[in-house]
């Protein structure tokens, strides 16, 4: 009999405990009473805000089609003096944040929708709609002649307006339902929260993403159902990639100097998304989440307000606290997304499928190594 040396154990992934958590249907966020309270409470207010964002994005896509100076795009077609005054007084929903997310998706691209928007099929649909729209508009026709790529790019952006609006429509309802389930004591733990979100995502996974615009009584398809774009893979995943992981560097009190290589030239290595963001600069001009936090603070459930009141600076730094809770909730959504995207069922017993699942999650964990995953564990 020949003695052999024991096989050296391969080095475990530095974030192996989190991989095991996800494989075990747990979340990246620890389960605790306060974490549940924060996550559900913040998602409730996020749901309310997303409802408004969603309606506005869809309104812009449908009714501000190739309006190059859309002065009243945030009014959803109802422009009155009191609304204008409220807008100027800034007592309003900050739709600019929704556009920030849309532009982040457009910029980073990714997924089948991005591919479709570069296809000849899209260009054909697009040109038909553009031609109908500018038929009687001489200045824009001149513009289109001089810069033939300009209007199609505008239409691509409008397609993202619509797609993000449709995505947030589903997420808004999902988060409100989650809040109702929490209020009805049907959801009480973080794993249950993750399971609820995952179920919602999976249920909507195959929903078609389509976009058509009506011009002079005729409907022009821009994202036709025949393109086969679906909710989960073609919008949700690129959204998570663009907004949660990549984002854009802040333009405010925390700015980055691209010339000094403080921003990676490799877009794939961008790490400025919601999962990496430092909540402390929230409140400063140019910090993207500030507007979202500003909006959410109006719709906080009472129990969450009371919770915030009891710590730190009370409600003086409520936006930072909202941002921290929001970040926790985004780790829950990320958990649900990753579990929903696992190549094989999480509880599979097939060693090869388990290895594939592990490798899939290890890839994501590599990217989360520099995120605030360690901070939300506290």
């Amino acid at each position, binding site marked *: 009999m020949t003695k052999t040396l024991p096989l050296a154990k391969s080095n475990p992934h530095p974030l192996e405990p989190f991989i095991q958590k996800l494989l075990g249907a747990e979340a990246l966020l620890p389960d605790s009473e306060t974490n549940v309270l924060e996550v559900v409470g913040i998602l409730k207010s996020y749901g309310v805000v997303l409802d408004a964002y969603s309606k506005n994005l869809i309104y812009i896509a449908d009714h501000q089609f190739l309006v190059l100076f859309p002065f009243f795009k945030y009014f959803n077609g109802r422009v009155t003096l009191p609304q204008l005054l409220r807008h100027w007084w800034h007592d309003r929903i900050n739709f600019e944040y929704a556009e920030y997310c849309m532009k982040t998706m457009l910029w980073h691209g990714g997924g089948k929708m991005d591919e479709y928007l570069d296809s000849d099929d899209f260009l054909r649909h697009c040109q038909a709609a553009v031609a109908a729209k500018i038929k009687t508009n001489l200045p824009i026709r001149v513009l289109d002649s001089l810069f033939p790529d300009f209007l199609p790019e505008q239409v691509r952006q409008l397609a993202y307006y619509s797609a993000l609006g449709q995505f947030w429509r589903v997420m808004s309802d999902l988060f409100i339902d989650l809040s109702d389930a929490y209020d009805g004591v049907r959801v009480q733990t973080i794993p249950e929260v993750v399971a609820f979100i995952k179920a919602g995502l999976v249920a909507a996974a195959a929903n078609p993403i389509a976009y058509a615009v009506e011009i002079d009584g005729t409907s022009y398809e821009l994202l036709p159902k025949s393109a086969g774009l679906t909710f989960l893979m073609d919008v949700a995943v690129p959204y998570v990639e663009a907004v949660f992981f990549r984002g854009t560097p802040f333009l405010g*009190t925390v700015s980055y100097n691209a010339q000094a290589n403080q921003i990676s030239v490799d877009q794939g290595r961008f790490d400025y998304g919601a999962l990496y963001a430092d909540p402390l*600069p929230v409140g400063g001009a140019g910090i993207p989440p500030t507007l979202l936090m500003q909006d959410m603070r109006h719709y906080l459930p009472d129990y969450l307000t009371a919770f915030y009141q009891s710590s730190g600076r009370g409600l003086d730094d409520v936006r930072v606290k909202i941002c921290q809770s929001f970040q926790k909730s985004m780790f829950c959504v990320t958990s649900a997304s990753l579990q929903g995207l696992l190549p094989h069922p999480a509880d599979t017993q097939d060693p090869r499928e388990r290895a594939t699942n592990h490798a899939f999650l290890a890839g994501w964990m590599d990217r989360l190594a520099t995120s605030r995953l360690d901070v939300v564990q506290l």
Partner: protein
Amino acid sequence: MLSALILIPLVAALVLILWPGKLEAQTAKLVSGLSLALTLVLVALLATRFDLATPGFQFEELLPWVEPLGLSYRLGLDGLSLPLLVVNSLLSLVAIYISAPTLHRTRLYYVLLLVINSAVAGAFLAANLLLFFIFYELELIPLYLLIAIWGGSRRGYAATKFLIYTALSGVLILGAFLGLVWLSGNTSFDYDSGLAAALPLAQQSTLLVALLVGFGIKVPLFPFHTWLPDAHVEASTPVSVLLAGVLLKLGTYGVVRFGLGLLPDAWMALAPWMATWAVISVLYGSLAAIAQTDMKKMVAYSSIGHMGYVLLAAAASTPVSIVATVFQMISHGLISALLFLLVGVVYKTTGTRDLTVLRGLLNPERGLPFVGSMMILGVMASAGIPGMVGFISEFLVFRGSFLIFPVQTLLCMVGSGLTAVYFLLLVNRAFFGRLAIAPPTAAPQLDIELPSVTWRDRAPALGLAVLIIAFGLQPNWLARWSEHTTLALHQPYQGFVQARTRFVPTALPAVADTRLVSPSLALPTPVFPVAAPSAEISLP
């Protein structure tokens, strides 16, 4: 009535000493605050009755005291002392207000603050040289104790250093006063008697050097300044506010009142040297401030630089520059008090003043946005940004001194530019960037839980900021009180100014043009009788 300004704080101190049982900090603060508020009201009442057209002492009080020694209890108020009295009462009130709610040896703390206020008021009001000296010395021990008992970790060293320096200052001043009386053959130490002294230049010069060094230590001027940064760093915030805002002014007040006022021949002879000394102090103070990483030390060194402007303006002794000395004293009093106040709030909130550690404090949610805004206002005022009192005072200093000492004035203007540099460093390092008080090598994602600054803490800074802007926008509100007194101080130097004027504009500002007063608040008579261009003014 003037005696009341000295007695009220002393009576309040006596009340605190005799207070039966345990004295709560709040009670001590209330009693002290009320007494100082009363003195402030009293000064305001005096100001309403103050005759702007009278250059000499008003509301005089004279009581014979130790007549064989020439010591009388003679008080008087003029345009030089009135603004400084207001600042004394105001900043003492601020110091009481910002004192920590819980203190060990509460009774002693407030008694010492009250005694300092009383002594400083007495020094500004004294119209007798010995009486001034008594009050000048009276504030030393309370200040020594305030640093030694309630100071930082090296309080013993700082307090002792302060005491040694200022005691030496007192010895020199007393020697100069005694020499002035002995050499002039006077029997009285009354200010007016000293004024009449006509001594040979050599004797005057000796006395003036003693006075300049004596008061130069207090100001402080290079190289007698080393006690100041230590004292500031170790002193608590209220004491720093008083020290920078009021107590340093005893030095500049002494230079102007006794040096400029009593020894004109020596003053004219030594003026170029004084202007050069001012330049050295300004540049040294500014460069030293740039090198600091402790916020408080930076502000302390800035004081050395800014006090140098007073010496430059006094040395020039033109009508405008003498007004500038008063303006610069008040301006520096308000601005430095604001800056030290804010540094105190930063220290209380973050636990550090280290500019290599602090950053991002302007963060609107978790940082100190109000403190940051006020700090930016304060440093802008200190750097002479228009619209604030610092600009007016520096403009007057440079405007008044340039004709006499153009080179020194230009060099001092470089110091003004350096002020912007070091304060920009301060603001940039501490207030901009990502919020963190931990060094960069610490936890990379440290969440900072800074306690918020309440409106109670913000109120005094806001009050000082209002005054800084108000006097910056309407300088006449301040200048009108001093114009006639400073004009009288200038009288002996008219010939000197004319003789030394290097650059005469083609149209030398007429009297009315040089006035600070706005048309609406213009005084009925011309204030600055600067001679119109004449054949007597020699061009270089």
